[in-house]
């Protein structure tokens, strides 16, 4: 076929691209991810019984702010990486600062505690990261499909950011179930859960995010 003929066909389809723009699609993905994780928590894990009381405390919200910020970092990165010229810098910077800050607080608490190993194990160290991965994996997969419809040119990094977005959302909702409340525990196991989602996104993104 001659290229002029192709251009003729493309010109007949001139106009705005159908459907929502990248930011809107990724915002919808985050919202849907929260719903999926919420259903998972309510049906499968159950909300923590003292939820109403702890919502008045500070650490509940601090924990939510930490994981929420990781999700925002993922969003900021993928909103750029889903475009051919996009740089993940702003997402990486935010994610690095937030992760670094919380892990540093965890290290300080670990160092000052009389029984740091108990802090590290909490009540649920064997399950925490895996639960977050389970709650975030569906959104990671859905996210890869959404991002594939955009135009990422760095598939591994784009997959990582997609997974971080999904994992951050899932971990934040997971806080409704999980009663752990130390910097050490959250800094290690929540972070690992979010990173596991990001790693899943990166591994799958390597072949899924081609167009």
């Amino acid at each position: 076929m001659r290229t002029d003929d192709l251009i003729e066909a493309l010109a007949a389809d001139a106009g705005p691209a159908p459907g929502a723009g990248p930011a809107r699609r990724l915002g919808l993905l985050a919202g849907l991810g929260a719903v999926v994780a919420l259903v998972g928590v309510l049906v499968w894990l159950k909300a923590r019984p003292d939820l109403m009381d702890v919502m008045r405390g500070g650490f509940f919200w601090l924990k939510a702010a930490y994981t929420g910020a990781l999700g925002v970092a993922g969003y900021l990165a993928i909103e750029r990486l889903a475009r051919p010229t996009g740089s993940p810098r702003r997402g990486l910077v935010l994610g690095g600062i937030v992760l670094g800050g919380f892990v540093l607080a965890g290290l300080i608490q670990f160092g000052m505690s009389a029984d740091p190993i108990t802090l590290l194990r909490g009540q649920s160290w064997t399950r925490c990261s895996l639960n977050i991965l389970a709650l975030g994996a569906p959104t990671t997969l859905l996210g890869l499909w959404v991002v594939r419809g955009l135009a990422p040119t760095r598939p591994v990094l784009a997959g990582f950011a997609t997974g971080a977005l999904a994992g951050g959302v899932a971990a934040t909702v997971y806080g409704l179930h999980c009663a752990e409340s130390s910097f050490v525990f959250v800094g290690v196991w929540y972070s690992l859960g979010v990173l596991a989602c990001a790693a899943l996104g990166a591994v799958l993104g390597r072949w899924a995010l081609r167009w």
Partner: protein
Amino acid sequence: MTDTETRLKALMLRGLEGDAPAYRECLALLGVRLRAYFARRMSGAPADVEDMVQETLLAVHIKRATWDSAQSFTAWAHAVARYKLIDHWRRRKIRQTLPLDDHAEFLAAEEHDPGVGLELDRALASLPERQRVLVSDVKLAGLSLAEAGAKAGISEGAAKVALHRALKALAERMRHADR
């Protein structure tokens, strides 16, 4: 060079508003630049150049939502072309690297004779009958989308949706056409 950017961007913006002649001109100008870009980098496989031009034009069209109109259009189009070339090499297991920042040179294109792309015909042939007829009808100059739709017995709106799907399917098939 910045004149080219200004001109391409203005045409693209009008195309996004539904101005078909402006969009045609934009893609034609872009096609010339893509041909030069690929010809320079694919001297080992000149027969594939026109296929790459066509695959990239299709991608530019289908992925146009990812261009942020506050940014340079040529930088975006160059990034699409660069990605398509790297993807092409990857699938053919050719190891090469491409500089990220040569989009200024991307603008300064000398003219090359357009060849004929073969992959697109192959991809087109594999489309369902209705989509294939629609694409063939609109590409023949003179037949508008409304007329092509009427010929197929569907409204202009439905023809637009069908054409969009057909172009998406074409882009997907071109990538997977055996290379």
